[in-house]
């Protein structure tokens, strides 16, 4: 529901990769939310900072650092929306931006609807009438028409899953309502233990569903993908092969790529936001060192790592470093230079990567195998069947919110809180699910009571 008392967050720069991406939080609690995710070098808090101030620090998801950012603090009415606003300027890349956004959602912001910042700006008198008309049209429009049939199909699956989950929750809420509104009927009531079990199981299922957001991103906004490897393993050649252009400068001098080069490419179903990085080696050159550090940072925040090894040379200490960096992230080992005589023992890579692929970037061989490996690694295949995946931040935010409320209900039952309060929480969670499918909870519960219970005078 439309509400300017809520604090909302969204990525405020266009989708795709850019040099810098902005995540904007706006609303009465914007600065408090920013406090929760942003850590300043000297411990300054956005909420204690005057407007028009920039703070330098890191955004964290819990204890995990996500990105080095500039946090801009605006205090209403002197902001775009007219409300208190915090903006994180992050290092581009939609995967990273989405992680930052998710951290903000976890910290209490709600996902902003389409045109929401503009609408708030209008409501707060920051925009004129003509601009506002355009916003009205934007909000009134459903979908952008560009959605592909395949996407719609997958969304259909998600909405069926959500529908089924909503029905399950309606059963519990309906049982609670029936027992409360018709206490003297001898109804077969659900025991608190049964209710607890159902709600806990549902929280788990919804939580798993929310996790598919990453896969949804892989299809729509791209997965942040770092190409790493020792110098001259053929990283840039691979990047160029994947992107079909000579974006990365390919030379035979080791250490040519000193910065991070980015490109968004489609590989089968997957959209990869590729970052070609400097070759990993110990170096005395200070400029190259910076590049190496940036590469490591990049790898640390990537959703997928393509680790490139030179198949024509033996496994080295630098290759060992590559394996180490790839640990803990979805990673594919690419044994390059299949066109040259092999002097590389693939077995050292076994068990350390999700998939191992041989290819020749130079001769453009093995690309299909890589495509398949990427699809496997990102679990894109399972998306074809099954329960559907979460695509939008709105869906993700709603699900995370729903899970939180359900867990609160379970906790309430555990410490003996009465069923009236539990029923309120169930209804709240149900509202979240139904909002995604366009219905209203109270009507659904009343329906359920009459459908399933024999009640009356």
């Amino acid at each position, binding site marked *: 529901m439309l509400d300017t008392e809520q604090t909302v967050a969204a990525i405020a720069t266009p989708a795709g990769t850019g040099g810098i991406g902005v995540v904007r939080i706006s609303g009465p609690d914007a600065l408090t939310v920013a406090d929760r995710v942003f850590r300043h070098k000297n411990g300054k808090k956005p909420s204690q900072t005057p407007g028009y101030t920039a703070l330098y620090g890191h955004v964290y998801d819990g204890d995990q650092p996500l990105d080095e950012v500039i946090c801009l603090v605006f205090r209403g009415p002197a902001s775009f929306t007219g409300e208190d606003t915090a903006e994180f300027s992050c290092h581009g890349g939609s995967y990273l931006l989405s992680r930052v956004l998710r951290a903000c959602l976890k910290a209490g912001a709600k996902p902003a609807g389409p045109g929401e910042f503009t609408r708030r700006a209008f409501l707060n008198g920051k925009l004129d009438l003509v601009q506002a008309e355009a916003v009205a049209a934007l909000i009134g429009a459903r979908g952008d028409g560009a959605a592909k049939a395949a996407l719609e199909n997958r969304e259909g699956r998600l909405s069926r899953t959500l529908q089924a989950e909503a029905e399950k929750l309606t059963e519990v809420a309906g049982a609670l309502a029936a027992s409360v509104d018709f206490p003297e009927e*001898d109804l077969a009531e659900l025991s608190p233990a049964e209710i607890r079990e159902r709600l806990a199981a549902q929280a788990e299922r919804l939580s798993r569903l929310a996790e598919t957001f990453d896969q949804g991103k892989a299809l729509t906004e791209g997965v942040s993908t770092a190409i790493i490897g020792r110098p001259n393993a053929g990283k840039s050649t691979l990047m160029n092969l994947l992107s079909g252009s000579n974006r990365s400068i390919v030379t035979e001098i080791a250490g040519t790529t000193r910065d991070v080069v980015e490109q968004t490419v489609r590989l089968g179903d997957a959209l990869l936001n590729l970052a070609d990085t400097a070759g990993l080696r110990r170096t005395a050159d200070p400029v190259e060192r910076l590049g190496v550090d940036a590469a490591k940072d990049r790898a640390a925040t990537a959703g997928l790592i393509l680790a490139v090894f030179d198949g024509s040379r033996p496994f080295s200490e630098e290759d060992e470093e590559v394996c180490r960096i790839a640990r803990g992230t979805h990673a594919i080992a690419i044994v390059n230079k299949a066109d040259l005589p092999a002097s590389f023992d693939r077995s050292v890579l076994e068990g350390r990567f999700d998939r191992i692929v041989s290819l020749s970037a130079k001769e453009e061989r093995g690309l299909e195998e890589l495509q398949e490996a990427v699809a496997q690694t990102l679990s894109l295949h399972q998306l074809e069947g099954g329960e559907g995946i979460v695509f939008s931040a709105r869906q993700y935010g709603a699900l995370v919110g729903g899970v939180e409320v359900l867990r609160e209900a379970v906790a309430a039952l555990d410490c003996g809180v009465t069923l009236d309060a539990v029923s309120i929480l169930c209804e709240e969670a149900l509202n979240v699910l139904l909002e995604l499918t366009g219905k209203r909870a109270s009507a659904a519960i009343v329906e359920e009571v009459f459908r399933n219970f024999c009640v009356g005078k």
Partner: protein
Amino acid sequence: MTEYHMGEFEVAVVGGGHAGIEAALAAARLGANTALFTLTLDGIANMPCNPAIGGTAKGQLVREIDALGGQMGIAADKTTLQSRMLNRGKGPAVHSLRVQSDRAEYRRVMKETLEHQENLRVIQAEITEVRADETGAICGVVTRLGAYYAVKACIICAGTFLNGKIFAGEGCYSAGPDGMLAATGLTESLKSLGVSLRRFKTGTPARVHRRSIDFSRLERQPGEEPVTPFSYLTETPPQNICDCYIAYTNEKTHQVIRDNIHRSPLFSGQIEGIGPRYCPSIEDKVVRFPHKERHQIFVEPCGESTEEMYLQGMSSSLPEDVVLQFLRTIEGFENIQIMRNAYAIEYDCCDPLQLTATLEFKDIPGLYGAGQFNGTSGYEEAAGQGLIAGVNAARKLQGKSPFTLERDEAYIGTLIDDLITKGCNEPYRMMTSRSEFRLLLRHDNADFRLTEKGYEMGLVTEERYRRFRAKKEAFEAERKRVGETVIRPSEALNRMLEEKGTSPISLPVRERELLKRPQLCMADLAPFDPGRPVLSRELEEQIDIDVKYEGYITRQEAAARQLRRLSDMEIPADLDYRQISGLRLEAAEKLSKLRPATIGQASRISGVSPADVSVLIIRLNQLR
């Protein structure tokens, strides 16, 4: 027929049931010269169905009516036979008071109250016409005998009387409930004024003779002690003086019903009216829930001075012989004697989507509707609406602003909002599940929610207001004290804590913190809180609720504030929705038809999406 002038009133109330009574009293008490017209003076305040007041959500309604200065709670307290607080174990949000009431006494008490009310005349007459002047505003009412009364406002509280038609088996005839006449003249007049009418139906079980029941075979259900009164004004709580009993149907009962189902007018399609799902007849229950082995019957006394017993749960429109046959299959009912037969009744009612939140018809200035006429069911629902309609009829004539209640303020507000934004396709019964704010709309705090408003509006007497202030101050003081009082660990305290299944303490703790534990209540801590003043049971309970549900209450209050902002945004009555770009066609049509008064109302209309609401808000801002 010759028409003759018989007098002038400001407000005419048509109908002397639960809605009509509250409407007439409220209008008269606010100073409007009021007349209540009833088909028969002996039918005033009749309970043609259960001899009971209150119940889940309905108990809250009665409390709200009382907190606003209405009459129902006071009359219920004066005529209580048995009282129970329902849902005790399920939390304060759903505690609901219900009493068995002496229906003859209730009628007498209410009639007497009406007769003694200043500014109010009670007249026995059937209103067959409501007349509007050339501007379309209400200007008079006409009786069946031709008497014309000039009036400025008219509140229709016709209950189930409008073109009432009774069905009992193959029998079918024009009648109101309980053997009274139907009101047959008014429908056409209302139609010509532009009221859109439809048919609803409801039913009632047989009444049987007390001595024909073998109570030794039934479960006894005594009242609950101590009795909590409905009215905040009642000082001496009523006594439990009667028991209720529980009986059960069995497979034989169901077989008789199944064998005779073809004789039911409901199943043969004779009845066109839409019946409520929450109030199914026994044949409905047997057909729809074939696997249920037994259905419960509450055997309730109709009064102290009568042997009639009411069989709650056995409403039926099967023929009398079938009803007798199936009742006699029930344990304890083997020799049962029917005094009044069961029946279904069909009646005309309006489409509440035509009403505003003051219950006035949008297009007929001065015409109001309340109660079953608006599509609801239940005495309490009717009374709540009657009060709102009566208050607003009087206020409008006095040039005052409308008096309405929000969803987060009262079940009355929720009820009316549901009616006017969602409409109803079956008789609407209040349920706690219909309120998203039920933790705020509790039985215990109706006065905190409403008495101040009722006082400002003029319906709450000085006496009631004085008592309310005293209670509120005591509550605030105690709330503060509990937050400051420190309880020190002691052997006795820790023993008690362990007995209650909660952990002992080793350091001093604020009383409020201890009370947050679900296992503990104010009474448990009394021995360890020597500074506590003498508190009423009610107040103790309120402190318990305030502490234990603080988190949930805060949450609901936040949701309520969201709602408020939407309901504070008023929509001009002449807004042309079809000219608003960005509004979907379906939404524009719905909105044009219903013409909601606020964005809040608009947001609850089915077919209006949140995106449509955003577009509307933007449009309103442009207009501002």
